[in-house]
């Protein structure tokens, strides 16, 4: 596949064009990737596909080998795996807080202790997610490194 990059004038709007014989899974994947880079992620609910702005995502969770995206009030199923999201969103304030949860730090309201060395994150929509023991020190280190 040939890749062409053409510089355009600053006054023009940037765009990406894909030349293909037919729109297949590969093309869809490229589109999904570009949209992710652009700040949105594909998710489906009720049989419909949606583009969810990354800034609207509260956390992403893996349940029984399926991945779900949680916004303030909605839940979407995603086709990507949690580790793929982790890789994709690591520069966008997302941090792994347990084996199954990737949290948007911008959506955390406060942190409080739970039992057994774990901590509870109260989110801005009132939900609570657990930072498991293993990830507590990583979480603390990450935050203190960022605000140093």
């Amino acid at each position, binding site marked *: 596949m040939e890749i062409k990059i053409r510089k355009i004038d600053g006054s023009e709007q940037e765009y990406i064009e894909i030349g293909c014989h037919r729109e297949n899974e590969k093309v869809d994947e490229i589109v999904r990737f570009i949209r992710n880079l652009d700040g949105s992620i594909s998710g489906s609910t009720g049989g419909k596909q949606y583009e969810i702005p990354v800034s609207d995502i509260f956390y992403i969770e893996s349940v029984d080998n399926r991945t779900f995206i949680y916004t303030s009030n909605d839940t979407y199923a995603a086709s990507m795996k949690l580790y793929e999201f982790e890789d994709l969103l690591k520069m966008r*304030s997302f941090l792994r807080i*347990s*084996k199954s949860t990737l949290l948007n*730090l*911008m959506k*955390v309201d*406060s*942190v*409080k*202790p*739970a*039992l*057994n*060395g*774990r*901590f509870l994150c109260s989110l801005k929509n009132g939900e609570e997610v*657990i930072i*498991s*023991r*293993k990830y*507590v*020190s990583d*979480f*603390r280190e990450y*935050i*203190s490194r*960022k*605000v140093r």
Partner: protein
Amino acid sequence: MRDNIIEHIKDNIMNFFIIVTLVDVAIFISGMILAPDAKLGYDSYILPVLIGFLGIIPGLIMYSKKELTIKQVIIRNVLQLILTEAIILSFLVGPSIFSSEENRAGVIAICISVAVIYIAVIVIRYFLDLKTAARITEALKAYQEEESNKA
């Protein structure tokens, strides 16, 4: 998994030092009430350390590689308390646990002390975690502000 075990050991080491301190306090208080004139030898300094070590054995054994639910944590804590009572009683009183009326009172006093110290360790750990949580929340707010300004 290795990280989990390290965290678990760190937790228990912290518990050890809290237990030793609390046992020291318990010996001081009960000694002042029950036998204020008693003279103790150097060997009595090792008792809190031994009790501290015995006290963390159930915690070390009860390691779980899975993340436990709140209910499971409570059940485990109750089992751990019972096991701790049994270990410390057998260490301090031995096989003559119920041999006399006097021993029985001592056994009850030890049981109560162990339970009080066990609960105190949980409460102290909770307050330490509370302080950590407050620090994390504060840092998190600063981080959010910084990131919002960037955007």
